[in-house]
C-alpha cells in the first residue's frame, strides 16, 4: 500500500517524486516505458524560458517564472548541464516590434528580471550572425538551456535513493477506487495507493478518464527539429526566438548545453514522432529567416517530440473534480519543462492539505556525476589508476570512457538500452551518431547485464538491433 502513486516518469513525474521523496511517505512511480524521460521530456527545445511569454495571471506565468529559478538551483545541486545563455526574441517589422513591446510588458508583470528591448545595432552587436532584416529584439538574459533528460534522470535518481519505488515497464491499464484506496492495474501487476498524481503527459486525459469524468482533452502536437554538429554550436550564443504571429509560433535557433545547435520546432497535430519531409523543410526555411547561414549540411540528427496541448489554454494543476484524491498535472505544454519543479511543489502542497507530511530525518538532495572529459589531467590519471576502464575511450566524438558507460549501466536507474546509455553519459551523441561506438556500447551492455546480443535494445522495448545469429549451430 502506497501513500502516493505517481503515473508517468517525465519531467513532471520525476520532479514530483523528487520533492515527495523528502517526506516520510511510501511512493511509487509507474512508467510505461523502460526508462524515465521517454516522452515529451526527451524531445523538446530544452529551453528554460524566462517567463515573458505567458499571459499575466495564468498558471503558466506563475509556474514558469518560479520553476525557472528552481531549475537553476536544482541543476547546481544535481550536477545537471545548465547554462544561462539568455534569449532574444527578434522582430522583422513594426508589427513584430509591437509584439516585442507586449512581451516586454508581460515579462515585467510576470516578474521577469533584466528584460531589455534592443534596437537593430544592439541586436547585431550581440549576435552578428542574425539576419540583416532584423529590426530589433527583446533580450531576456535569464533564459537558459538545459539537458532535460538528464534533469529528469537526476531528480528520479535522488528520489529512488530516498526510497521512491520506480516501476518501469508498467503501462497503466485500469484504475479503480474503493474504500478510499486506489487500485492501479498495469501491464505488470496491481498497485494500491491512497493518492494518485497523474503526470502521464500526452496520455494524461486517457489516464484520468480511466476513473474520472472527461474534464479536459489533450491534443498531441508534434514538433520536428534539427540537431547540428558542434561545428555549428557557436553560430549563435543566445536562444533566438521569432515573434509568434498569424503564420505560427516561429522557429527557434539555440545552442545546446552539449555544444550543438538546435533548430525547430514546427507544430502539427500528430500522435507519432516521425519526422516528415514537409515538416523539416518548414523548420529549415523558417529558421534561416532569423539566422541565414546555418549550415544544414552539418546536421547530425533529426527528431520529433509530442507536446501535450490542452483545450483550456493553461496548465491543469488541480485535484480531479470527479475523483477526490486524484491530482492532475496535465496538459503541460510549453513552458512545461521550465515549470515542472514548481508544478511538483503544487502537488506537494495539495497533499499537505490531505494528510500530515513529515520530512524524513535524512534524505539526499544532491547528486554528483563523473564527466571524464571535463576533468583535469591529474584527476583523469587518478581515476584511471583506480579503474583502468576510465582510460578506454569508447565514444570518440564526445570522449566518453568505458568507465562512465559501465557506471550508467549499473547506476541507480540502470541503463538498459544503447540510447539509455547515451542519455546518461553522452556516448553516441556526437557527430557520428553511434556509428563507431554503438557496437561497442552494445558489447558492454551484453557483458555487464549478462544478456544475449539479440536482446540489446536501441531504445524502448521492441527496438532490438540484431535479428538472429549469423550461423546456425
Amino acid at each position, binding site marked *: 500500500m502506497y501513500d502516493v502513486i505517481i503515473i508517468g516518469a517525465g519531467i513532471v513525474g520525476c520532479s514530483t517524486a523528487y520533492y515527495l521523496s523528502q517526506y516520510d511517505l511510501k511512493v511509487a512511480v509507474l512508467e510505461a516505458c523502460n526508462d524515465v524521460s521517454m516522452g515529451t521530456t526527451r524531445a523538446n527545445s530544452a529551453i528554460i524560458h524566462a517567463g515573458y511569454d505567458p499571459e499575466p495571471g495564468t498558471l503558466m506565468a506563475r509556474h514558469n517564472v518560479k520553476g525557472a529559478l528552481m531549475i537553476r538551483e536544482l541543476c547546481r545541486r544535481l550536477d545537471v548541464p545548465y547554462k544561462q545563455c539568455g534569449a532574444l526574441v527578434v522582430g522583422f517589422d513594426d508589427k513584430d516590434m509591437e509584439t516585442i513591446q507586449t512581451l516586454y510588458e508581460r515579462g515585467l508583470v510576470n516578474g521577469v528580471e533584466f528584460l531589455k528591448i534592443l534596437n537593430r545595432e544592439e541586436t547585431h552587436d550581440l549576435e552578428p550572425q542574425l539576419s540583416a532584416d532584423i529590426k530589433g529584439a527583446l533580450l531576456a538574459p535569464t533564459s537558459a538551456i538545459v539537458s532535460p533528460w538528464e534533469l529528469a534522470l537526476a531528480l528520479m535518481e535522488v528520489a529512488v535513493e530516498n526510497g521512491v519505488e520506480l516501476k518501469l515497464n508498467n503501462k497503466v491499464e485500469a484504475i479503480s477506487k474503493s474504500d478510499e484506496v486506489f487500485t492501479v492495474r498495469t501491464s505488470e501487476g496491481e498497485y494500491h495507493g491512497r493518492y494518485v498524481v497523474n503526470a502521464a503527459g500526452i496520455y494524461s486525459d486517457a489516464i484520468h478518464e480511466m476513473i474520472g469524468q472527461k474534464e479536459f482533452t489533450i491534443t498531441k502536437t508534434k514538433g520536428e527539429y534539427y540537431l547540428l554538429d558542434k561545428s555549428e554550436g557557436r553560430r549563435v550564443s543566445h536562444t533566438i526566438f521569432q515573434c509568434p504571429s498569424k503564420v505560427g509560433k516561429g522557429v527557434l535557433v539555440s545552442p545546446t548545453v552539449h555544444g550543438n545547435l538546435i533548430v525547430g520546432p514546427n507544430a502539427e497535430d500528430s500522435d507519432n514522432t516521425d519526422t516528415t519531409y514537409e515538416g523539416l523543410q518548414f523548420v529549415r526555411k523558417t529558421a534561416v529567416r532569423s539566422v541565414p547561414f546555418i549550415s544544414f549540411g552539418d546536421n547530425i540528427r533529426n527528431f520529433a517530440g509530442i507536446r501535450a496541448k490542452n483545450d483550456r489554454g493553461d496548465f491543469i494543476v488541480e485535484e480531479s473534480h470527479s475523483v477526490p484524491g486524484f491530482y492532475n498535472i496535465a496538459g503541460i505544454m510549453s513552458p512545461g519543462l521550465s515549470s515542472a519543479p514548481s508544478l511538483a511543489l503544487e502537488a506537494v502542497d495539495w497533499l499537505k492539505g490531505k494528510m500530515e507530511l513529515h520530512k524524513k530525518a535524512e534524505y539526499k538532495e544532491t547528486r554528483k556525476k563523473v564527466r571524464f572529459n571535463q576533468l583535469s589531467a591529474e584527476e583523469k590519471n587518478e581515476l584511471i589508476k583506480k579503474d583502468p576502464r576510465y582510460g578506454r575511450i569508447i565514444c570518440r566524438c564526445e570522449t566518453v570512457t568505458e568507465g562512465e558507460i559501465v557506471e550508467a549501466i549499473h547506476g541507480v536507474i540502470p541503463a538498459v538500452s544503447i540510447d539509455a546509455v547515451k542519455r546518461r553519459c553522452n556516448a553516441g551523441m556526437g557527430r557520428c551518431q553511434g556509428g563507431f561506438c554503438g557496437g561497442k556500447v552494445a558489447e558492454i551492455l551484453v557483458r555487464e547485464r549478462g544478456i544475449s546480443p539479440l536482446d540489446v535494445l536501441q531504445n524502448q522495448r521492441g527496438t532490438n538491433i540484431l535479428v538472429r545469429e*549469423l*550461423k546456425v549451430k
Partner: protein
Amino acid sequence: MTELICIGCPRGCHLHVDEENDYKVTGNSCNIGAEYGRNELINPTRTLTTTIRLSGGNHHSLPVRSAHPIPKKLLFEAMEVLNHREVKAPVKCGDVVYADILNTGIDIVATRDLD
C-alpha cells in the same frame, strides 16, 4: 557480341566479348580482362568470402575465402555448407578450414589469425 564490365581490378574496363569468334575480347587493358571476358560467358566464377563460426577462443566469427574463384552458380550452395561448419581457435591466416568445397578442388581458407 556481349558487353561486360571487367571485375578483375578496380579499373572496371568495358569489355566486348564476341561469342561467334572464339570469345575474343576487346576493350580490355590487360590479360585479366581477356580471361575474365571469356570465362564470364563460358563458366563465370567468383571468389567467395564469408565467415564461419569459431569456438574455443575470444572471437566467435572467422573470416574465410575460397582460395580461388569457384563457379558462380555454387555460391549459395557453398554458403549452406559453410554455415554449418565450426572451427576451433586458434586459427592462422591461410589455414585450410574446409577442403575441396563441393568437389571443386578448391579449399576454403582462413583470412586472419584469430585466437
